[in-house]
């Protein structure tokens, strides 16, 4: 409230600077304020007392004698306006009571007995006003009581609302933080703990970090779901690649040009090729490239590992013969495995659309 911070003004003061201070606080012209005070001074000297009261208030804000002076000034003012003494007395009592109540923290919660005394005083003032009998006061009184209640309860309600808003904001922030903390705890912290426990196994550490990276990306870039929604071969292959990464501690890089609906034979064969590369090639990284055109879908799985002689592949390499070639051929496609010992292996899967 502006008046709370009311100060006399040293700039452009004529006497104590009260008028200039008011003009400053209300941003009005100082001459207007002086004129009002001069007129009030004519009204039974109220202006002079008011001036003194305000000056006292600005010197020693909130002291009882400053308040008293203000009340006297107010009473003189009201008498000058023509109210009866009883009415003025009632109003002054109400004002004094309110002042007491306000000063004790401005709320019902104030435990100080003075605030109850203040309210009692205000109540007496109201009764005096009501009992006063003259018609305008009777009309005025209920409004005065309502106003008084509002004045007493207002600050309390206001503060209650502010507190509730602050509380809600804090709660939302806390909930958000708890959500992030929960996720970080469930994922990142767990992974970090695991990494510390497996610090001597680089492959395991790499695969843990990789899985965590994928999860975090999925969460951060939720607008592009990394999960397999069943409509995209590339997405399905990414999921399969993630499994292989996790199981075998390798990294699978997927590049693509175009996309197609997922095909089970192609998917399983590609997965088998990735698994083979992860198990036998002795490499840390596998490249997968998907190319989808109107005529066919092709998947290439390549490693730069130890390689093997395709012609003399041991019988144990059932995976290639059955899971890759057989599966693709039954689906109407082709699978070609090229490998050079020491240079790596590539499995080429093609399926007409």
């Amino acid at each position: 409230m502006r008046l709370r911070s009311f100060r006399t003004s040293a700039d452009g003061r004529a006497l104590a600077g009260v008028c200039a201070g008011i003009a400053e606080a209300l941003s009005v012209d100082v001459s207007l304020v002086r004129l009002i005070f001069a007129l009030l001074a004519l009204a039974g000297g109220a202006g002079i007392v008011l001036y003194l009261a305000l000056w006292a208030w600005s010197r020693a804000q909130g002291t009882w004698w400053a308040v008293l002076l203000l009340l006297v000034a107010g009473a003189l003012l009201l008498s000058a306006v023509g109210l009866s003494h009883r009415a003025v007395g009632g109003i002054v009592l109400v004002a004094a009571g309110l002042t007491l109540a306000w000063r004790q923290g401005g709320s019902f919660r104030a435990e100080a007995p003075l605030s109850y005394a203040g309210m009692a005083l205000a109540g007496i003032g109201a009764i005096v006003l009501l009992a006063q009998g003259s018609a305008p006061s009777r009309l005025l009184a209920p409004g005065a009581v309502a106003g008084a209640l509002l004045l007493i309860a207002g600050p309390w309600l206001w503060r209650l609302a502010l507190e509730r808003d602050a509380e809600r904001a804090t709660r939302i922030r806390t909930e958000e933080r708890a959500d992030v903390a929960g996720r970080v705890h469930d994922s990142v912290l767990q992974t970090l703990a695991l990494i510390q426990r497996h610090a001597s196994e680089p492959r395991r550490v790499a695969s843990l970090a990789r899985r965590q990276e994928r999860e975090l990306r999925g969460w951060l870039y939720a607008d592009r779901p990394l999960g397999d929604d069943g409509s995209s071969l590339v997405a399905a292959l990414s999921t399969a690649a993630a499994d292989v990464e996790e199981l075998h501690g390798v990294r699978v890089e997927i590049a693509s040009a175009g996309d197609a609906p997922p095909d089970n034979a192609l998917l399983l064969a590609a997965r088998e090729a990735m698994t083979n590369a992860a198990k036998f090639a002795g490499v840390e990284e596998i490249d997968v490239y998907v190319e989808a055109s109107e005529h066919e879908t092709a998947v290439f799985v390549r490693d730069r590992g130890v390689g093997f002689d395709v012609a003399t592949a041991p019988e144990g390499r059932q995976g290639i013969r059955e899971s890759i070639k057989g599966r693709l051929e039954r689906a109407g496609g082709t699978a070609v495995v090229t490998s050079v010992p020491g240079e790596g292996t590539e499995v080429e899967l093609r399926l007409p659309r």
Partner: protein
Amino acid sequence: MKTRVLLVDDHGLFLAGVRAELGDSVEVVGEAGTVADAVPLIKELDPDVVLLDVHLPDGSGDAIINAVAAERPGVKFLALSVSDAAEDVIAVIRAGARGYVTKTIAADELAAAIERVAHGDAVFSPRLAGFVLDAFRAGETVASDAELNELTPREREVLQLIARGYMYKEIAARLHLSVKTIESHVSSVLRKLQLSTRHELTRWATEHRLV
């Protein structure tokens, strides 16, 4: 003489890692973490290659290229990124970067990529190769500048092998060409990527994220 490299990345830990990985293969002349820091530093140090993160706290990598290219035409840019929207990668390439690699790239491959870029050649990660193939997909015929908007069968072949994870010398051996020829094909693709008016380039980039 060693290639003089300037690193631009806002992740201190990553910078330290790259510095350690590159070791003695190149000379790291400086580091910057923001667009505002990088621009004057590049002008001052005039490095051979700037290794550039696509995302920086105060802007994206292409802002640096745009601010520097006119004054220091000799400086080559290689974009390096961990997670990125395709539109940013394409913006960096179209602004003039000579290549794009992911942050998971092996140390020796990164050193090789820097050398390649320093010599004016282009470097594509498999993912970027896949993207280019997708964006330059046959089918759409553009009347003007057909040369810029289409890939030759040979370029397509080379890009396809890059996407499949082959290195330049492996591609050269497979196609019975010299590494020099492969490099010139890739550079030609880069030029098309930078100058092409194919609207797929921008449309594709906004629809996809190269994550």
